[in-house]
Each structure stands twice: as structure tokens, then as C-alpha cells.
């Protein structure tokens, strides 16, 4: 179903509610997982699976709503105000990159996911470098780029297969992904 995918208000509310909850749980799972790499800022980004699903199922506006809400709630629950600020920095850059990446239609879902992963890390490290006013932090950028590519591809793969199954099992017009 191409074109206008805005559904009824109650549909949107329900959609945002479900996916925000999923994203918060995803963030929680990520917190529980032991960190394989001691470098600050290297994370899997499991919540991005949900955001990508929202982006491809219902478009940028809904994905933005889910992303923003889950960052705030997740931060209030787990990481505190400074956590929220860093997550917003990463999430904002990540969302903009993914939205633009999807709009210009040259990337696959995997590419969009990698864009999201790398830009999320970049947003966070830039904010950190400003807050701490130390340029040596920028030394981390190469590591963050490489880990962003790897985790982005991995997350993108998961999102891709999930999206495929969702569309396969629910042959309803409103679950067909927008392209």
C-alpha cells in the first residue's frame, strides 16, 4: 500500500504503544547483555531493530514518535538524565541518517541500518567530546565506525527477516511495508 500510510488515530496510538514498549524492552535486554568490547560507546543497538521496523511499516513520523518516546522512558527507567541526553544525541543523528537513507532509495534495509548504527555512535562521541572538551576522545572514531558497520549490518539482518515474516504472516494491507 503506497502513498499515504497514516492510519486512524487510535491505530497510531496502539502502534506507537506496542512498538515503544518493544523498544524499551530491547534497550533493557541490551543493558543486561555483557559488553564484549570494553570501548565506551560500542553497543549492539537492539532497539534499532524496532525503529527500523517502524520506519518500514509506518514511516518516519511514527518511527520518530517511537524513537523519541523510548529514549525518554528508557532513560528515566535506567540511565538518568545524562543518559537521556547522550541517547538523544545518538538517536537524533541516527534517525535523521536512517530517514534520509531510506528516502533516497539507494540503500537496502541493511545499508539504512548501518547508517543508523554508525551515525548513532558518531552523535554520541561528538557530544562526549564537547561535554568533556577533550579532543582526544575523537581517537575512538575509527573503532566506532567499524563497530557501527558490523552491528548495523547484524541488526539490519535481523530487522530484514523480521519484516519479511511480519509481511508474510499478516496479509493485511496495512502491514505491507512501504518502499
Amino acid at each position, binding site marked *: 500500500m503506497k502513498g499515504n500510510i497514516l492510519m486512524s488515530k487510535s491505530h497510531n496510538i496502539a502502534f506507537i504503544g506496542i512498538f515503544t514498549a518493544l523498544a524499551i524492552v530491547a534497550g533493557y535486554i541490551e543493558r543486561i547483555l555483557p559488553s564484549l568490547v570494553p570501548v565506551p560507546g560500542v553497543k549492539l543497538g537492539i532497539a534499532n531493530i524496532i525503529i527500523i521496523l517502524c520506519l518500514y511499516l509506518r514511516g518516519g513520523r511514527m518511527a520518530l514518535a517511537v524513537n523519541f518516546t523510548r529514549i525518554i522512558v528508557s532513560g528515566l527507567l535506567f540511565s538518568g538524565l545524562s543518559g537521556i541526553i547522550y541517547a538523544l544525541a545518538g538517536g537524533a543523528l541516527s534517525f535523521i541518517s536512517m530517514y534520509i537513507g531510506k528516502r533516497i532509495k*539507494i*540503500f*537496502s*534495509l*541493511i*545499508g539504512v541500518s*548501518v*547508517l543508523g548504527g*554508525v551515525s548513532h555512535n558518531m552523535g554520541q562521541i561528538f557530544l562526549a567530546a564537547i561535554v568533556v572538551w577533550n*579532543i*582526544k576522545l*575523537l*581517537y575512538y*572514531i*575509527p573503532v566506532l*565506525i*567499524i563497530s*557501527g*558497520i558490523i552491528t548495523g549490518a547484524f541488526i539490519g539482518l535481523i530487522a*530484514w527477516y523480521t519484516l519479511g515474516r511480519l509481511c508474510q504472516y499478516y496479509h493485511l494491507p496495512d502491514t505491507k511495508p512501504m518502499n
Partner: protein
Amino acid sequence: MLKKADIALFISLLLFAVLFIFIFDFTNINGGSVAVSLEGMRYGSYPLDKDTIIDIKSKEGIYLNSLEIKNSKARMIHASCPDGYCIKQGEISHSHDTIVCLPNKIIVEVINGSKNKVDAVSQ
């Protein structure tokens, strides 16, 4: 599943990461400092990223040399020694580079500076 643009994205990101490493290694954003010793004893340590001029004086307060740190490099701009070889030694910025003023017994060495082509010297 993967498109051409994706591959291009991955490659350009990787190239950028590698480029970044090179830029950092060669422009000495790293910092680093010079350690100055007088008559074999530590005189002081000065960061290379702050432009300053250090007047080196002996224990008795006699003026000896002036070391200038500018643009992440150090050089001797004035010396009270008769030959002035230390000034002729020019600028140092790489790790293990030194400026030596033998008559005044001053040694200036770069610590933690940008990578030197020679990393160790066997003796």
C-alpha cells in the same frame, strides 16, 4: 538484498576510518610534551599543544637558553652558549627527538609525541 550503494557505503566508511587514523597520527593532535633536563636533572615538562616560550635558568638564576613551543614543535630560539648548535638543531616534534645544548648541559626530549620513523635505537 544488498545493493551497490550499500557496498559503496561500507567501503567509504572504512576508508574514512583508516584516513582518520592517519590524520591523527601525523598531525599530533595527540598532544605529547617535551621534557627538559638541566645537568642531568629534571627541569620541567611542557605540553606541545600550548604555545609558550620557556626561559631556562640555572640553579643560581643565571639565564641559559630559551625554548619556544609553537605549532606543536619545540626549538631553541636563544642560547647563551658560544656556539649555538642547539639553535641550529632546529625543530623537534617526533617522539625521542632531542635538542642538546652541551655547554649549558641542557637536553630537550619529546615524550609521547607523534610517531617517529625510528622507534628504538639499539646501542
